[in-house]
């Protein structure tokens, strides 16, 4: 009897695999490689800072760019290990509408606060002075990149802190994987639908953040564009972040839409459309938001992302049988 059941299960396996996105495939092919790369590139960044803390050092800036790229491709995966303590916020505090990052860094530097010399204690410091966005100010902001002995130590402390946070997230994912794979009545996730909802939430929130913050903040309003609010503009990374996040979200969307070839094609086409327009923009920091002609192009890219969001909401969600639920961007 048991044997027959097993046989039946095996026979059914391919069927179920195509009927539903595979959580384990999403974990193994989408989530884990990203966090593994985040840990290793952050480690490399920290090593580069130890070897040369000069903010204009090519090696340091290159290592910074590589690790930051990986973070942007990972930043939509806000669940489990990233949400322990303040990890994700400590890697990436942005948008910073009140200028907390330059203020916090300027205070540390002018006080020569000893906590800036102590990587282990640095996790006590405001998230505004930690992570990739704070490091950008230390490496690229005219005022805050001024070299000094303290500045050098601070760069090393911030990069060591980034490496420690990234590796803690990566380590925890090994066990957190099982939480996603074993839903049950008394588990964190009560059903596979709840796990899928978590994945859909990551996709939805990632798209929302890229459209509303990465593009929406510099766009401001027609009468009052805000180019100074572009993400990571000091290092010229604003448009690159939109590209990287869209590519990563495209990968997640293709996993989630695996059971419906038409939907999968539609989503793929919509992502390619947005990415294609972005590739022809040739405006790395969205300086064009202030010019009516080029502003329109940036607005259209935002609308393309809006189209993807609509497809995800009205077609992908129902296909998966779940709603996107609430995310941390729901406030105002």
């Amino acid at each position, binding site marked *: 009897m048991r044997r027959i059941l097993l046989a039946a299960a095996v026979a059914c396996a391919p069927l179920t695999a195509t009927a539903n996105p595979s959580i384990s495939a999403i974990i193994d092919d989408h989530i884990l490689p990203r966090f593994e790369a985040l840990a290793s590139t952050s480690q490399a960044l920290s090593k580069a800072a130890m070897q040369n803390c000069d903010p204009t050092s090519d090696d340091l800036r290159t290592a910074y760019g590589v690790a930051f790229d990986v973070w942007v491709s990972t930043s939509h995966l806000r669940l489990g290990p990233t949400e322990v303590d303040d990890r994700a916020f400590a890697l990436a505090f942005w948008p910073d509408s009140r200028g907390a990052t330059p203020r916090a860094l300027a205070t540390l530097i002018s006080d020569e606060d000893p906590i800036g010399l102590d990587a282990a204690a640095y996790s006590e410091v405001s998230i505004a002075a930690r992570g990739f966005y704070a490091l950008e100010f230390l490496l690229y902001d005219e005022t805050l990149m001024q070299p000094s002995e303290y500045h050098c130590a601070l760069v090393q402390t911030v990069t060591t802190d980034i490496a420690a946070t990234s590796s803690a997230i990566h380590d925890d994912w090994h066990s957190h994987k099982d939480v996603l794979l074993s839903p049950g009545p008394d588990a964190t996730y009560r059903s596979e639908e709840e796990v899928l909802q978590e994945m859909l939430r990551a996709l939805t929130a990632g798209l929302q953040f890229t459209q509303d913050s990465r593009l929406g903040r510099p766009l401001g309003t027609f009468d009052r564009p805000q180019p100074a609010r572009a993400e990571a503009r000091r290092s010229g990374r604003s448009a690159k972040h939109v590209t990287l996040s869209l590519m990563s979200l495209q990968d997640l969307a293709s996993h989630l839409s695996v059971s419906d070839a038409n939907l999968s094609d539609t989503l793929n086409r919509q992502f390619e459309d947005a990415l294609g327009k972005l590739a022809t923009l040739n405006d790395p920091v969205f300086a064009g938001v202030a010019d009516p002609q080029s502003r329109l192009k940036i607005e259209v890219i935002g609308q393309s992302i809006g189209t993807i969001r*609509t497809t995800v909401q009205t077609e992908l969600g129902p296909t998966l049988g779940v709603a996107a639920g609430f995310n941390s961007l729901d406030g105002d």
Partner: protein
Amino acid sequence: MKRYLLTTAIAVGLATPALAVETTDVLDTYADIAAANYGDSLITAQRLQAAVNALVADPSAENLTAARAAWLAARVPYQQTEVFRFGNAIVDDWEGKVNAWPLDEGLIDYVDASYGGPSDENAFAALNVIANPTFTLSGQDIDATSITPALLEDTLQEADGVEANVATGYHAIEFLLWGQDLNGHGTGAGDRPWTDYAMGDECTNGNCDRRGEYLTAATDLLISDLEYMAGAWAIGGEARSELMSDADAGISAILTGMGSLSYGETAGERMRLGVMLNDPEEEHSCFADNTHNDHYYNGVGIQNVYLGEYIRVDGSLVTGPSLSDLMAETDAALDAEMQGKLGDAVMALGRIKIAAEAGFAYDQMLERGNVEGEALIMGGVNGLIDQTRFIERVIAALGVDGVGIEGSDSLDDPNAVFQ
């Protein structure tokens, strides 16, 4: 035996329709609570207005204290209304006028030197309209010789497209009553002297007449804004009609408000970010040191709309068929869990309030390395996040999908982001 069971089943079957909770009744209760809650906000704001008028007409330490007490009382009902945001477009379109935060208070009045001047983000962060009857704003000459509700609402609010230019609402009034809190992470709220409103030689920090004019105008505006919203929820009002026009969407609106206020707004933007930034400016009511109450009454408001119970400021109870009743009909166990989670969150937020009222100020809790403070605040954050997960389960169980979308303007209207 079988026959007996069948009979029972039939009896139950017959009884059920009579007992069934009607969705429209649940929506009625929700709208009744909204009407009472905004009505109470108006009543307490009118008391604030009387106290403000007394302060401006007859400035004294006693009258300033009385106005502050009236402001604090007015916050009790208002913070409970925040659960009506995010799910009801009419509330979202209006809310920024009465409760916008955080604000660059230098727009309004004098500030300490440590505040700094205009910033990258806000060229008018230190405009000080009370000291400057005329100025230029985004290239336009502004005549502010007379400070009127219209000036605040039409010209100064979100001046230059910057959200931190908050000229109206509770927090602008709070700043005018308390002044900046210059105690950093220490205890104590803002300490504006009553003589900031004194006449003649007793006037401190200049322009006392204009300060009084600003305070009066901001309070008058708050009253008219609250009158509008209380009316919108009354029988025949537009908020109520909109809610009742589609029963499923109405239930969605209730749950969207509960989830968005719990997670993104209170747990995230207001509480978690503050503790991670270690910044006393991240307090929601940073001038009056009333932040513990802001969070607590947000939690109570969320519980109110689920249980269908609201205690009015006169002590009377507004109640009726509730979302909880509706949920219990579908899945009584999930309803019990939901109630438990809402209670846990209110308790966790209550602990912050207890500690704060006993002398452990919210800005002390935010200080770098303050382990007890962080644990208290994170207790509230975790309670709110935890209850959000259950709100999602209630949504799934009731089959009201599409929730969580109404709260986000950009999804309602893909072009909103470009406006």
